């Protein structure tokens, strides 16, 4: 009889499921304050994962640690591993700039550069030394972000002339232009109206064919609509965020296994 340990089984499952990003026992500290405590989440390729949880539970901190954005905060440090395509993002010698090209990020508020629509999208490839046809790349990125038809006649206009929803799609196009393998989205629709929100959600579905997406959202219905898997995070008495439950979205929203998840998603507090 061949004995397999639980750890071996977990590893075998990860191979079978094609795990692109494997967050292992990750803790994030700001100075002495532990913002995230021992979170483990395997993310499958071409899937959308939602991170939900109350404000301050460390969702955004966790998200930012997935492309080393927290490095920009002087006191921040991490423990544990983030394996991206099998390589630890925090291994000595890992290049945070390279990582940020491969793991793109879309923020809560649309933050286009004070440049033209074209230059916003071309910005990343230019500093990345892109050698191909830039016009084609810009068009393709704008098409993927479902914005091309709305802006093709005014690519030289300022990005600020676009509506909020368009600006957010422009930011997505800007992220796509550097051909990332993973896209992180931090409440990408919280500043948008319902129609612009639906446009972004449709886009997420389309992007899923080529990309893997991790999204932080406060909108339960949005998590239900866009994601394949959902992670519910909560915080301890010492305000450290931890993972309560990670499962198929359908399971989390119809029959969560942990009472804390149930209480959170159904709005029962205190």
């Amino acid at each position, binding site marked *: 009889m061949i004995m397999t340990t639980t750890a071996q089984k977990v590893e075998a499952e990860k191979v079978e499921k094609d795990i692109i990003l494997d967050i292992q026992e990750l803790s994030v500290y700001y100075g002495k304050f532990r913002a995230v405590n021992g979170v483990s989440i395997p993310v499958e390729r071409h899937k959308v994962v939602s991170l939900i949880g109350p404000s301050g539970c460390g969702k955004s901190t966790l998200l930012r640690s997935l492309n080393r954005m927290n490095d920009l905060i002087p006191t921040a440090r991490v423990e544990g591993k983030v394996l991206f395509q099998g390589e630890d993002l925090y291994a000595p010698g890992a290049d945070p700039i390279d990582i940020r090209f491969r793991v793109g990020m879309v923020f809560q508020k649309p933050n286009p550069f004070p440049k033209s629509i074209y230059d916003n999208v071309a910005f990343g490839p230019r500093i990345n030394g892109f050698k191909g046809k830039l016009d084609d790349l810009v068009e393709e990125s704008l098409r993927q972000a479902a914005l091309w038809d709305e802006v093709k006649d005014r690519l030289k206009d300022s990005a600020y002339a676009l509506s909020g929803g368009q600006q957010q799609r422009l930011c997505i196009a800007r992220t796509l232009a550097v051909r990332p393998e993973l896209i992180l989205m931090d409440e990408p629709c919280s500043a948008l109206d319902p129609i612009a929100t639906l446009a972004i959600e449709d886009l997420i579905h389309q992007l899923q064919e080529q990309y893997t997406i991790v999204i932080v959202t406060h909108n339960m219905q949005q998590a239900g609509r866009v994601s394949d898997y959902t992670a519910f995070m909560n915080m301890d008495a010492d305000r450290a965020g931890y993972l309560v439950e990670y499962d198929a979205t359908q399971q989390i929203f119809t029959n969560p296994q942990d009472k804390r998840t149930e209480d959170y998603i*159904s709005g029962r507090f205190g």
Partner: protein
Amino acid sequence: MPTSRAVFDEEMRELQQQLMLMGTMVDTAIGRAIDCLQRLDTPEARSLIADDAAINHKRAEIEEKVVQVIALQQPLASDLRFLLAILHNVVDLERIGDHAEGIGKIVVLHAGRPLVKPLVDIPRMATKAREMLRGSLEAFAKRDVEASRQIADDDDVVDALHDQVYHELLLYMLRDPATIERATYLIWVSHNLERIADRATNICEQTVYLVTGKMQEINTSRY
């Protein structure tokens, strides 16, 4: 001012109460149906048939409220399962009302002619089916999975009584073809009661779903 969650909880409590009220209406209808069958009371049977409209109306009222709560509160997890279970249960209760009404119609068809045999097992079936109905609703209110499973097991008792009634009435028909019409009526009555027990079993299944999130048949009726 109450919190949103408190308002939502109150709405769900109200729905639970309305479901119990509908259960009482339906339970009363079964009792009246068997009474007027035993007394062959055609006027009472006609009144029972007319009163089924109130049960149908109650179903529509509860369904409308559930739709409203789903649209406005966007419930999830056990809240969502509760509302879905209510929707299923009101359908079963409404159909149980139809079965009671069906017995009333048979009384009218009987047109005052004497019963083909004294009623023994049919009132027993009615008593058992009503016990199952009340028990299933109580278990739903208490979210009691164990009780629900036990009540569902009782469906076998009602099925066995139906078997017995059926075979007994076949013998009557074989012995005296003049009884065929009236004996068939009683088989229909028995079938209505057997279906009531099946529908009480459905309510038990909804309780299991509500609590565990798993949809499963907990007792398969032979009919």
